[in-house]
């Protein structure tokens, strides 16, 4: 029962997110709006619920499985991937490496700067 309640809460927030996006026309996907609303609800309540924790943990622990069907969709694009393999593969590899390296370096230097008392605001 607990899992059922948890998953229903998640689906309801997704639905609210989708409806808000449809009504407002903001260019953000519905599930993201649902996530923000759920976070705000949890912050306002000041605590989570066991059912919600359980459902989230089980969904997120098998997160990588959920990407498989979309990945298999590569077979729909063999032709395009074949004719543009160079820009696609170089862009994916280099951009992923650059993002990992630059993000980590920026965060590390900001943390060091902050630890030295560089930030006076907090």
């Amino acid at each position, binding site marked *: 029962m607990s899992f059922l309640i948890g998953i229903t809460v998640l689906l309801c927030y997704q639905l609210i997110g989708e409806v808000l996006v449809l009504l407002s026309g903001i260019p953000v996907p519905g599930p993201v709006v649902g*996530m923000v609303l759920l976070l705000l609800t949890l*912050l306002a309540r000041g605590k989570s619920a066991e059912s919600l924790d359980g459902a989230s943990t089980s*969904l997120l622990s098998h997160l990588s499985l959920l990407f*498989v*069907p979309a990945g298999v969709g590569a077979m729909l694009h063999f032709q395009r991937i074949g004719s*543009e393999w160079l820009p696609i593969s170089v862009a994916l590899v280099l951009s992923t490496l650059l993002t990992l390296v630059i993000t980590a370096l920026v*965060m590390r230097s900001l943390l060091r700067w902050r630890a030295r008392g560089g930030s006076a605001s907090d």
Partner: protein
Amino acid sequence: MTETGLSTLWVYLSASPLLGLIITLLAYIVSYRLYEAANRNPLLNPVALAMLILMALLFVTDTPYSTYFEGAQFVHFLLGPATVALAVPLYQQFSKLRALWPVILASILTGVFVATTSAVGIAWLLGGTPETLLSLAPKSVTTPVAMGISETIGGLPSLTAVMVVVTGILGAVFGTRIFDAMGIERDDVRGLAMGVAAHGIGTARAFQVSHQMGAFSGLAMALSAMATALLLPWLLGMLGLVS
């Protein structure tokens, strides 16, 4: 069973969504077992392995993707509630997030900027077509969000989904090695960079390293999904790629 009996059975099964669902689960379970048997060697990434098994299976049986997806959509659908579910680890880490928020925000915005502009820029330099560039732009964001963004900016959502999955696998395979080589030891820094660059697949990998790395990766994946959804249409407009 006779030859015709078998082919009748095959015709029945291949038209039912059950088969697509079962082979997705089986391919993933087999891949995950192999990955565990290889001491979780990131090179044997279970998503990549499962994708290859399934594509080979569909190719051999001459099954179109649309038939497969009728069953696989039940798994795919769960990406929506899983995205909403990210609110829970975000909430649990909220005290750390609040203490570090200027650093986290600045790092994530930098990461989103690098991820999108470098992908589009490199593919453009190497002669990628406009649809490919637009489909590549949201590649570091989790699938349902990336597909939504791709649709908004005029890319091909299903091509974006493939780019997203490949990006995630690359991040999961190389992330920890790169951090080791760079001497990045803090799990919050490693997790955040992983989540920005490699979304849910990177996060799944991060959770295997430590709970803190996983939580920061999930946090970064959620925040960068939001930031990319909000900023990318505007950023591409500045580059003159979308009107």
